[in-house]
């Protein structure tokens, strides 16, 4: 059972890390810019938050299948395939939540930074710092979206024991087999994990509260 938990964590942490690397800069762009292109991309990011995991799983599986455009990589039913699917699910979530947090930073604050000599990159770094509470929320939302996701990882991972079986797919498997005990035990671990991760993130937020805008 612990191997399944470890696989879940490994895949989700890698996926969230990649999603943060891609989603935070994208979210900053969406939150700081004002243009027609930005508006269209923001609609896409917001819509992407509701992306059905089974659709992501289907598209990823087709792309990675032997006849698909990425078939030569031979990744289907491997952990990297699960990471790819989870990144696709998490990036819009991280980007949209980051964008909302960045947009809430007053423009005048950016103007103030600019008036002291800030470049656009400095401005973005300032917004990141000012919106860090929202950034923590973005990470939490991204993690929540992938750790509890089942459809996509099942389709691209295949639920192979000792390799691509994760907590959610194992719970489905045990339930189908009528083994409610292990299914409930894994569910409890999954819930505990989500609580622990969110407690840590909440602690990060609290530690910054002394410097929060009232």
């Amino acid at each position, binding site marked *: 059972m612990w191997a399944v938990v470890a696989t879940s964590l490994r895949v989700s942490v890698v996926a969230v890390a990649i999603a943060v690397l891609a989603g935070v800069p994208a979210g900053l762009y969406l939150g700081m810019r004002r243009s027609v292109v930005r508006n269209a991309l923001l609609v896409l990011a917001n819509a992407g938050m509701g992306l059905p995991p089974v659709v992501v799983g289907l598209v990823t599986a087709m792309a990675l299948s032997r006849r698909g455009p990425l078939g030569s990589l031979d990744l289907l039913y491997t952990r990297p395939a699960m990471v790819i699917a989870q990144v696709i699910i998490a990036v819009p979530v991280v980007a949209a939540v980051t964008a909302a947090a960045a947009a809430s930073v007053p423009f005048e604050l950016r103007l103030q*930074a600019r*008036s002291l000599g800030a470049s656009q990159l400095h401005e973005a770094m300032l917004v990141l710092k000012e919106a860090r509470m929202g950034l923590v929320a973005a990470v939490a939302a991204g993690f929540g979206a992938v750790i509890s996701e089942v459809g996509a990882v099942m389709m691209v991972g295949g639920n192979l024991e000792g390799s691509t079986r994760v907590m959610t797919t194992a719970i489905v498997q045990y339930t189908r087999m009528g083994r409610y005990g292990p299914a409930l035990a894994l569910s409890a671990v999954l819930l505990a994990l989500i609580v622990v991760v969110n407690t840590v993130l909440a602690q990060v937020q609290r530690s910054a509260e002394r410097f929060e805008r009232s």
Partner: protein
Amino acid sequence: MSAVLEATQIRKSYRRREVLDVERVALAPERTLALLGPSGAGKSTLLAILGLLERPDAGRIVLDGREVTAADRSARMQVAAAFQRPWLFKGTVGANVAYGLALRGVPASERRERVAEALARVGLAGWEERSALTLSGGEAQRVALARALAVRPRVLLLDEPLASLDPVVKWRLAREFAELLHEDGMAVLWVTHDQDEAAVVADEVAVMRDGRIVASGPADEVFLVPGDPWAAGFLGLEEPAAGVVAEVTDGVARVACEGADVFAVADVRPGERVRIGVRPEDVVLFEATADVPASSARNRLRCSVTALEHTGTTFRVVLACGGVRLAARVSKAAVRELSLAPGAQVLAVFKATAVRLARERSESEGASR
């Protein structure tokens, strides 16, 4: 004195509506120019353009003899600004004051010294470790000024820096800031809609209306003889009367105006055409028949009250003294005692030293827009 920052032919429109059309504005070293005007006059837009924070549609900005634009970051490094709200960043007071220094690559040890120095200058020595977001309005504005001063800018732009403070803090800071700004060799632009604040801080004043500068010059001249009827009204003055210097005796000029003579201490010559300015605060009213004892107040004009305006704690009395129109500021008790009302006759008394004369400008010397 050559200007540190000079902007000419500046134009800006938003959605096809022209909001700025300024022929020239210049900031000189060690001088504070107060940009005065009502809300919506374009003051903040002009400040943003001078601060290279916004691009004008047309015009030229020259900083230390070099034409610059908003894209020129090295030029932006020479300018610092503080706004009506202090807009402090999350973090400590020290981190806020150090922000501009870090952007300029100032080493950490020097940064600490300059932060301490800037905080000491605004009266907050030792406040480095406090959270910036738990300060009072006055304290936050001091930190904002320290943050701007720390980078030792050539040009300091202050956009209504005291507008959101309560009156007691506001006047204390106005006096302190004015003193501070004169210690440095910076050129300062101080935007405000409050003429009393401008009078405290400014060496020079430019009055804006509808995106244009309608009056400008040394503060004591603009506040007495603004050279524009609208600016005069905005500053609480009546339109300056015009007259001719009839004679000059021992430095005191007698100016013949329509229906009244006005005495002024001024460096003028007989025959010159001048305009006359007197601040309402300098005019004292008596009953028309009062026997006012001899004093240094040379001007005693019989006037009739044409209007009486309630302006908070005082009243503004508009007077017609022959062809000379004056305003006086009086208390409620004075209004009662003198039975002031439109049509009432009074004696207006003011010193020759309280009168400012401005030579009539020829057409080609018209005030800059």
